């Protein structure tokens, strides 16, 4: 039984693509056959973050339009055997996706994959609706900032009212909160919303907390999902998130500022 998970947020630039790439990679590394789809038609980014941009021949829209078959468009990841990427089209726009077209692609993917991750575009328009419509679960990516939280709240409303599960009165989409770019020192200083603030407003269960970390930018520019950087806090936090998604219990890390002992300060941590 395969699961469709949408990574969504409402607001742009909060870490959807970074999250999609890392969680897909993490699930595949745990032995689950996974595909990650870039729904951001016209602003193709996922292939860059996954480091496979030079291997894109056919894309999602080609498959929807019947110009290529699915196996021609799927790109096999070089690092993980179980991981495939379905890239977006850079030359089309989001209206190229139709419910019927997306459904037929997802139906085909379901026969091959355990996890289907949908990397949603920002906004609440057609592209974002297409990405969330068929979802069984949703990872709502949020930054500790008021406008991001407000937009995530809006997307949660859409998941409850506009998804296939909502329209057919099935069990609702399972919602997970992922709080990204968290800086405990700025929370302590009162510049940033705290984890409690965000969970209180959104009132959905937390699946992970990703600290602000230089390794994310480096990983994106290098085309390597940050989860593969096992020494970095962000990489470790994504690994925890994937474990929780698979049902494991892990304590929450990086919630408060790590106190550096004088020895560590002296010799460099």
């Amino acid at each position, binding site marked *: 039984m395969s699961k469709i998970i949408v990574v969504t947020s409402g607001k742009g630039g909060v870490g959807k693509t970074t999250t999609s790439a890392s969680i897909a990679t993490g699930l595949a590394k745990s032995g689950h056959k996974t595909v990650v789809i870039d729904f951001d038609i016209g602003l193709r980014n996922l292939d860059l973050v996954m480091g496979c941009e030079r291997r894109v021949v056919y894309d999602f829209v080609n498959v929807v339009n019947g110009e290529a078959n699915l196996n021609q468009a799927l790109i096999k990841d070089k690092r993980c055997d179980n991981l495939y990427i379905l890239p977006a089209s850079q030359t089309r726009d989001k209206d190229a996706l139709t419910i019927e077209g997306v459904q037929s692609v997802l139906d085909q993917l379901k026969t091959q994959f355990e996890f289907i991750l949908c990397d949603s575009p920002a906004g609440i328009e057609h592209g974002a609706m297409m990405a969330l419509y068929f979802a069984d679960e949703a990872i709502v990516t949020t930054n500790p900032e008021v406008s991001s939280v*407000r937009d995530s*709240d809006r997307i*949660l*409303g*859409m998941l*409850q*009212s506009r998804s296939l599960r909502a329209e057919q009165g099935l069990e609702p989409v399972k919602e997970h909160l992922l709080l990204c770019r968290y800086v405990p020192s700025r929370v302590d200083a009162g510049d940033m919303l705290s984890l409690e603030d965000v969970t*209180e*407003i959104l009132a959905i269960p937390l699946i992970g907390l990703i600290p602000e970390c230089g390794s994310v930018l480096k990983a994106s520019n290098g085309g390597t999902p940050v989860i593969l950087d096992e020494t970095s806090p962000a990489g470790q936090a994504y690994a925890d998130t994937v474990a929780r998604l698979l049902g494991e219990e892990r304590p929450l890390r990086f919630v408060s500022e790590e106190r550096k002992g004088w020895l560590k300060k002296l010799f460099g941590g």
Partner: protein
Amino acid sequence: MQRPSVEFKGASFTLSVLKLSGHTLDQLKQQLNSHVERAPRLFHQMPVLLDLSALDPSNLSLSQVLSQVQASQLTPMGVLDPAAPYRQQAEQLALPCIRGHRHTPSRHGRTTVIEQPVRSGQQVYGKDGDLVVMAGVSAGAELVADGSIHVYGPMRGRAFAGATGNSDARIFCHDLQAELLAIAGTYHLAEERDPKFWGKPTMIRLEQNRLCHSLLRPFE
């Protein structure tokens, strides 16, 4: 912009209902006159709705009744819930048939209960009655009800109670953080609210065209 030459506007008025009884035209005339004579100036050209439920259509026709009522200086505006023969006659005379409240099912008291959080951008309408939200209402969400509104989670959105003009409607918030509250069109922004109600269980009601806040548990 050109002004429209025809405008339809909704308005509501109170009309008197004139209940008629009697078997003959003479009885009717007598009773009408004895009533009107008591306060002729009050009844002069008074618009009335005719309640014909006590009349027998086979004895008296609607046109006979109408001319008698008009002779008594009253102005019939329509017929209230007429029986079938009178309804047909009213239609021929182009006299409106008004449906009274007695026969419509009670419009108030229908309660809408929402168990899920109401998220930013969502609107919930409690038609013809109260709206009860068991979860939180996010900033940017809107609650509308013809009756009162009750919110048991944190209330951060907007609420419009008494949306069809019921000024007796009230708003009850378990945790008041609302952006905007309105009752029967009179509204109030968060900025104007006394900060002591912030986050508190609060009731809001309309009094002399102003929204009045009071704590629901003042002794705690």
